[in-house]
């Protein structure tokens, strides 16, 4: 017996799969499973987070429903995965946020944006908020750079802290030796596997979506989202370096590195999430954890909102709309940061951690 009903079901399935093993070439889940004969809660959470939800093992399984063995690995692992996020959340008191995630995210986003607008308005005259500001330092007429850096730095550090604490618990639970560290080689391997979404490919043909014709669509949109996010993050980092090292103040001209990175990233953050959302809507419901729609959609919406507000700000930054747009964009980013540890964002972190564990196990097995 396990901690939850879904883990009981995951255990049943892994017992079936372990006596079958037909799927062992499809992804990392099955070889990892084969290294075990019995499954602890931690093992199951590990396997659940190794799964990339490509759907291949469902379409390829001779025992999937309506067969009486009722084997649906992608869906079961999706539910187990989502429950694992809550189980490892830090602080524990906030684990409930996952359950109401869609709502929490929208409320947080709305509140943060409203707070920025009101904050700008309260701190300035009307004509500052709606004024036309151009040239270096234009943004900081609305909010001093130091205030911005402090606010976002704090939100970001909190997110990092919460994520690190959660992952620590996860790492211990998935069978890593207590206090044991991930070695460099395994981390490097996991970076490569995650970076190319190695296991979102159904064993080579692509991912299963609305029917049994595999495509690479979800992989493409996922890449756009992920690398879009990284580009935006890089834009922020470069901007920060410009500010402190070179003393150059934003906004920068369109051809300058932070803007180019941010623009490309922003496009990724719009196209990617929209594509993922469309794919999700069309996907066979047998493959989805529909109970967690809110969480997935909330996260997709947040990324998209961040991208859109950023791009619109870029386009209209020399007009009177700049003030309100900046407030909206900063609000979106702020909400994204503080909800990060309690939403779909964590899937990447746990999956990466599971991949590190997998790489390590493979090395140990030789």
């Amino acid at each position, binding site marked *: 017996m396990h901690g939850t009903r879904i883990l009981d079901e995951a255990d049943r399935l892994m017992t079936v799969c*372990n006596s079958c*093993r*037909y799927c062992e070439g499809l992804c990392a889940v099955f070889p990892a499973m084969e290294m075990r004969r019995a499954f602890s809660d931690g093992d199951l959470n590990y396997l659940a987070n190794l799964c990339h939800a490509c759907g291949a093992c469902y379409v*390829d399984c*001779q*025992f999937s429903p309506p067969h009486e*063995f009722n084997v649906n690995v992608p869906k079961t692992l999706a539910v187990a995965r989502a429950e694992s996020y809550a189980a490892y959340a830090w602080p524990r008191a906030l684990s409930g946020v996952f359950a109401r995630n869609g709502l929490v995210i929208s409320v947080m986003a709305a509140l943060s944006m409203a707070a920025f607008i009101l904050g700008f308005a309260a701190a300035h005259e009307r004509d500052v908020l709606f004024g036309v500001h151009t040239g270096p330092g234009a943004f900081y007429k609305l909010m001093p750079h130091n205030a911005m850096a402090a606010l976002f730095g704090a939100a970001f550090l909190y997110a990092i802290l919460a994520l690190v604490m959660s992952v620590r618990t996860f790492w211990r639970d998935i069978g890593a030796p207590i206090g044991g560290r991930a070695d460099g080689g395994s981390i490097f391997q996991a970076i490569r596997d995650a970076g190319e979404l190695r296991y979102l490919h159904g*064993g080579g043909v692509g991912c299963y979506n609305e029917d049994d*014709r595999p495509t690479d669509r979800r992989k493409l949109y996922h890449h756009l989202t992920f690398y879009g996010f990284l580009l935006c993050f890089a834009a922020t980092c470069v901007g920060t370096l410009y500010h402190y090292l070179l003393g150059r103040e934003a906004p920068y001209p369109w051809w300058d590195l932070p803007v180019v990175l941010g623009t490309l990233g922003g496009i990724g953050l719009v196209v990617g999430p929209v594509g993922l959302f469309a794919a999700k809507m069309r996907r066979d419901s047998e493959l989805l954890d529909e109970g967690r729609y809110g969480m997935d959609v909330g996260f997709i919406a947040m990324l998209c909102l961040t991208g859109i507000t950023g791009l619109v700000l870029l386009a209209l930054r020399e007009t009177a709309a700049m003030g309100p747009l900046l407030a909206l964009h900063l609000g979106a980013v702020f909400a994204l940061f503080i909800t990060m540890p309690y939403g779909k964002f964590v899937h990447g972190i746990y999956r990466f951690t599971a991949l590190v564990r997998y790489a390590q196990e493979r090395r140990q097995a030789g």
Partner: protein
Amino acid sequence: MSRKYDVLVIGGGNAALCAAIAARRGGASVVVLEGAPKFYRGGNTRHTRNMRCAHDAATEILTGPYTEEEFWKDLLLVTGGRTDEELARHMIRESKDILNWIVEQGVRWQPSLGGTLSLGRTNSFFLGGGRAMLNALYLTAEQLGVEIHYDAEVTDLVVEGGMFLAARLKRPIDGVNEIRATSLVAAAGGFEANIEWLKEYWGDAADNFLIRGTPYNRGSILKMLLAKGVQEIGDPTQCHAVAIDARAPKFDGGIITRHDSVVFGIVVNKHAERFYDEGEDIWPKRYAIWGRLVAAQPDQIAYIIFDTTVATSFMPTLFPPIAGATVAELAGKLELDPVALEKTVADFNAAVRPGTFDHTILDDCRTEGITPAKTHWARRIETPPYLAYPVRPGITFTYLGTRVNKEARMLMKGGRPSANMFAAGEIMAGNVLGKGYAAGIGMTIGSVFGRIAGREAAKHARN
């Protein structure tokens, strides 16, 4: 209402799809009638994992070589010579090319992962298993323009003087209940799921058989063809049967109900008596004999008995072993006579001679002074908990079939080739397999003869 095609394929498994694709590539209009609903399409092929093909050198997926001659010798060994040499050699020769042909149809092989079975040299494994393989074949067939219908059971064949004219459907498709075609490919499997038919040869024992694969292979097409004058081949009592968990479902339990623990313990019948040398030969060579052995025991039930020291020496099992702290307690749980089981285990233990255990070779751990002997891997069963799996005969597929020639063309009684009827797969497996079985050969028969049947059927239709 009726409709006409160049080639009609009955069935929906590997043999049928290989035939349909080959016929379509040969320029024919092709319709496939699969009796099962879409999920169950592909009969027993859904449950397969690998295919045996000859090859002259190692490849990415196979260690090698596995020559034609060696394949032939393996076939000779398992069949005890009961095979049509000309046909079998032809199949083996063609199997070399099938390895690549099947990949061209979208099927993917799995790189050898170390694996659980020692078949890395002779057999190629489908990436994702048989259903993945089928999905690829169906996709290719659809893309080529093969028309496919599910829930399309054929209930009657119109054949005149060895010439196929039409097939009748149980349920009309788009108002059509009769399909005419210039050529027929019958690839509708064996009759293993037809317990009534099995009982004709096995008597009431067949009521206790479990059918490992599809419930849709009821042999109806085979029966019709034989009734229409097609020559029959093979012994109806010969089939591929293994011992599977007695707790498995009646049909379609697939691969996961098998047990490969026989060599690690002893096997007793319902009187708690041993009845065969459990250490005769290495898994998987001897895997296929236990179905028949159990079928010959009273009530068609047997129990694999072992102890905790070997509990993790074989593949994990779907159903957990039944456990007892003592042999008597275990007997109680199995509803066996405790005194009898204790005696059988004690006698066996006393007969075990010391040796060096190695389950990868025919080792020197054996018994002395009991019958039947256990000639290899004999070790005392003495470390509680004592464990057991109940097993029953699990029928994989039957060998009674239609006689064919090298063109996969059916032969009529008297030896005359049919004008336009071809057969592939299980339904004609008995031409090659008079008895016995070598892992992966079911897929070879289906792919090789399926491709030939499709090609020849298209050629006939276009002439």
